[in-house]
């Protein structure tokens, strides 16, 4: 088989999403962000929402999310994305509004904004990347860092007596009446990626339909921050993260 046969359209098994541009990605190879970005771009395109979507980027590894997906974006201060999204959706109720946030942004500095936006039942979708570490600043402890997990600010492992416990914020959010979808997914296998795409689609549809707040927590790897190969990071996540952050729907109404 020569090259021209290989690149025939009918042999295409994977394509770059139409809404993703050619900007050089800053994410580390093996990081979950790239996969989730691709899913977000695919779902927006498939739902025909390019002209109706406003994305809110966080502070953290995804701070440059706006560089990769060709929709309108706002870059929020650290943790404040749900407050921005609240105003955008209230002022433009026919748009699809989503935030894309990491664990430090959503579950530490932005806890108040997250919980109160969800408690008001703002019609927004929240894509929540939980990799248990601060990647952008070089591997410090996150609110979701596991017990005994080593980071640059917990070099002997997270001591839950002095540093607090892993924060299961999705469990808190699922309790709120304003939340219509609280689900935990991952992107470490083909099946998991497909499931995650379905849940992102549902969250975006919920925003459009005005059903309330949807949170899709993607339990993710940070192989660079965890100091592992991507494959080893996936295995470590399954073995150590999933018991604390079990995959599945906490709420789906």
């Amino acid at each position: 088989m020569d090259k021209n046969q290989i690149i025939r359209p009918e042999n295409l098994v994977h394509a770059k999403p139409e809404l993703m541009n050619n900007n050089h990605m800053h994410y580390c190879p093996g990081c979950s962000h790239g996969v989730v970005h691709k899913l977000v771009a695919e779902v927006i395109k498939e739902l025909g929402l390019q002209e109706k979507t406003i994305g809110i980027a966080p502070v953290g590894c995804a701070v440059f999310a706006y560089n990769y997906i060709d929709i309108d974006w706002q870059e929020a201060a650290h943790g404040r994305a749900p407050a921005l999204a609240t105003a955008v959706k209230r002022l433009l109720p026919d748009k699809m509004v989503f935030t894309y946030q990491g664990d430090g942004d959503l579950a530490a500095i932005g806890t108040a904004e997250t919980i109160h936006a969800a408690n008001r039942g703002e019609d927004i979708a929240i894509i929540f990347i939980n990799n248990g570490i601060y990647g952008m600043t070089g591997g410090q402890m996150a609110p979701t860092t596991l017990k005994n997990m080593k980071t640059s600010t917990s070099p002997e492992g997270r001591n839950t007596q002095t540093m607090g416990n892993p924060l299961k914020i999705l469990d808190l959010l699922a309790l709120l009446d304003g939340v219509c979808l609280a689900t935990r997914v991952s992107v470490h296998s083909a099946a998991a990626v497909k499931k995650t795409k379905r849940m992102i689609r549902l969250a975006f549809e919920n925003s459009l339909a005005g059903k309330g707040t949807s949170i899709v927590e993607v339990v993710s790897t940070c192989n660079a921050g965890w100091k592992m190969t991507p494959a080893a990071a996936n295995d470590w996540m399954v073995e150590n993260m999933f018991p604390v952050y079990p995959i599945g729907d906490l709420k789906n109404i």
Partner: protein
Amino acid sequence: MSEEIVLMKGNEAIAHAAIRYGVDGYFGYPITPQSEIIETLMEVAPWKTTGMVVLQAESEVAAINMVYGGAACGKYAMTSSSSPGISLKQEGISYMAGAELPALIVNVQRGGPGLGTIQPSQADYFQTVKGGGHGDYKLITLAPNSVQEMADFVGLAFELAFKYRNPAMILTDGVIGQMMEKVKLPAWQQRRSEQEIREQCPWATLGKTADRKPNIITSLELDSAAMEKNNERFQAKYRVVEATEVRYEEIKCDDADYLLVAFGSAARICQKTIDLARKEGIKVGLVRPITLWPFPTEVLYAYGGRVKGMLTVELNAGQMVEDVRLAVNGQIPVAHYGRLGGIVPTPEGVLAALKEKVVH
């Protein structure tokens, strides 16, 4: 039709003016002495008439970030608070200055520092005109001295904010916010349609259409060379504002030997002092800066060559006096008189200070 004149508090005038101007969204958190603004909005319920969104946020931090989100959509978005709450908003104000977002912030000042007092103060002058948040930025600052100006400056603040894509503040205090006066409310104005906003604000994030690139509202630029260029662009804009938008009022300055310089509620008190002084044969005038940034530097420099001395009167320990001294540039003595912690000076107190510190 006869003119529609009503009696109301300054805080209430802000709320009514915002609805009439066609403001799209108000986001706030209660704090004395300005809670009448959100209370009035909730009572009038403009979402039933103009479609204006009114939302009580979980904190001042959330409220200012809601304003960021609304402003980034090209909407008329505003918040209000009082000194401790305004301190919390500084992060958001800096981000809006960095992202060049137009919005209105109202500060009905109370005495500080800390939780301080709920009584009036002008001690946030430095915070407002010298920065407040981090980075090199300027906040267009309007200082009303009456309930009428509270109403009028809502529209003026939005006009200037959108003209320069910069946040604007109405810097007032508990006196002006709480006192009742006659006011002629501004004319009703239709809220702008999404299409009108798309035309007026081509930068707004209203959803990417096929005919343009994505709109991205951000204050982030990691490339230092590009970030310096951004800063130079901001500074060039600030110089235009300084050259174009200075506003001030002169009262009985023509024959004055001495000048009082005061803004907001302090300027109202000084008007009475002028009468008291002139009865005693002391020719006193008043320059009232209406824009605190841009500051009326040139006019004060010119008076520095004409009068014998100036007294700034402020509800603080001496803040605007520094800008007056910079403007006068050593030509004549410039003294300060202020009361602190929520105490309001009396006209007699100002006259006594004038005689003691300036008139020799």
